[in-house]
């Protein structure tokens, strides 16, 4: 149990530092900006109580907000992400797995296509919330949507790559 806590804590610190020092300064084509810190939220173990997960998401998003001076935007989006996570997973497994038995999807258990689709859905939800809350209006909606989709693709690519680079894949 202790090992899991330390592992998660380390993951949060590393990903947040990566976010602050590198990703916040990357602007692909001058527009698209990856948010890779959500990987730490996606990998939170399901054994943890939901309330604690929400508080962690709120705090993580809040720290990102401090650096971007967008108080509340990332916190709200991260909270939404963690809240929606079990429902998206259950929908993707077509209801065959019950909420108590959910597991964090990792390479080795699932194909990379499945992981990419899952990550895309989660990242898009987060990114779309961030974009909308940042603008806080529905004017120029298609532009917001376009940027959100670009960000999501970028984030998904990075996250799937990180998952495959750093997870110990068991060979059959």
């Amino acid at each position, binding site marked *: 149990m202790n090992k899991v806590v330390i592992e998660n804590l380390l993951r949060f610190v590393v990903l947040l530092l990566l976010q602050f020092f590198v990703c916040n300064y990357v602007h692909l084509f001058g527009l698209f900006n990856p948010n890779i810190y959500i990987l730490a939220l996606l990998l939170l173990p399901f054994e943890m109580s939901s*309330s604690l997960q929400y508080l962690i998401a*709120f705090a993580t998003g809040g720290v990102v907000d401090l*650096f971007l001076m*967008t108080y509340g*935007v990332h*916190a709200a989006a991260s*909270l*939404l992400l963690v809240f929606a996570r079990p429902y998206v997973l259950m929908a993707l497994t077509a209801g065959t797995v019950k909420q108590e038995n959910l597991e964090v999807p990792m390479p080795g258990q699932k194909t990379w296509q499945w992981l990419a689709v899952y990550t895309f859905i989660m990242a898009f939800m987060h990114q779309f919330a961030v974009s909308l*809350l940042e603008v*806080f209006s529905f004017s120029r909606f298609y532009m917001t949507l376009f940027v959100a989709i670009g960000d999501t693709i970028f984030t998904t690519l990075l996250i799937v790559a990180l998952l495959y680079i750093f997870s110990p894949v068991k060979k059959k």
Partner: protein
Amino acid sequence: MENLLEFFRKNFKYFLFVVLELVCIVLIYNNMSYPHFKLAKASQVITGPVYTFRHAVVRHFYYAKENEDLAEQNISLLRENSNNFFEESDTVISVFDTTSSKKKRIYDYTFAHVIHNSTYKKYNYIIIDKGQKDGITPDMAVLSSRGVVGAVSNVSENFASVIPLLHADSRLSARLPSINQIGTIVWEEGDPLHSYLVDIPQHLAVNIGDSVLTSGYSNVFPKDILIGTVSEIDNSQTSFLKIQVELATSFNNLNTVYVVKNLYKDELDTLKASFKNE
């Protein structure tokens, strides 16, 4: 009451979710409020050191660009110096034109980077990264931000070689403004920090620390550019003083240099050539 508490306990996570989301929405909505301003100020305690650290690392990547910008700026400042102009104030000026004293530009500047440099040989030379293509021609003066470097000797398409003051054959006409005397700067092998000012007569009082400037007679160097300062005076040898000059330019770490172009060079050269022919 029991049922209500039970309901609340059972659905605690949903309440927490809604409450936290509401907190976020309130924060976003009150974008311009006083608490928001206080929050921004307080958060700088955390974000400030992180940004400072990042800046301390990242700024090293921008030195090249910044150096280029500063060189540009130096050139625009150098161009404004009065020693680049020839005042036409004593020519006939019409009565209606007295306000505009006519200035004619003689010297113009460009900058270059040193890509090869030697200081410990007898015949040292410097190579700069600009050449014919950039309008460099032989006999142009080369300056550093501190003082004189030397003169261009050979020019290829993209590069040029410079004979620095640290060259056994280099001669530079120099002026001691404290006594208003003209001398010549020569260099002796082995010491990249000092040169010698010769041809100053014995009877003149030269002080240690006097600055030595270019005379402006060569048509290569603009007038009054710093060469160095007097560091030692030797009057034991001939009827002339041998004055050691501590060079203003540090030749061991040259990077950006300024190349000076005399816009009337061709005209002056033909004039000089006509003297030789007679």
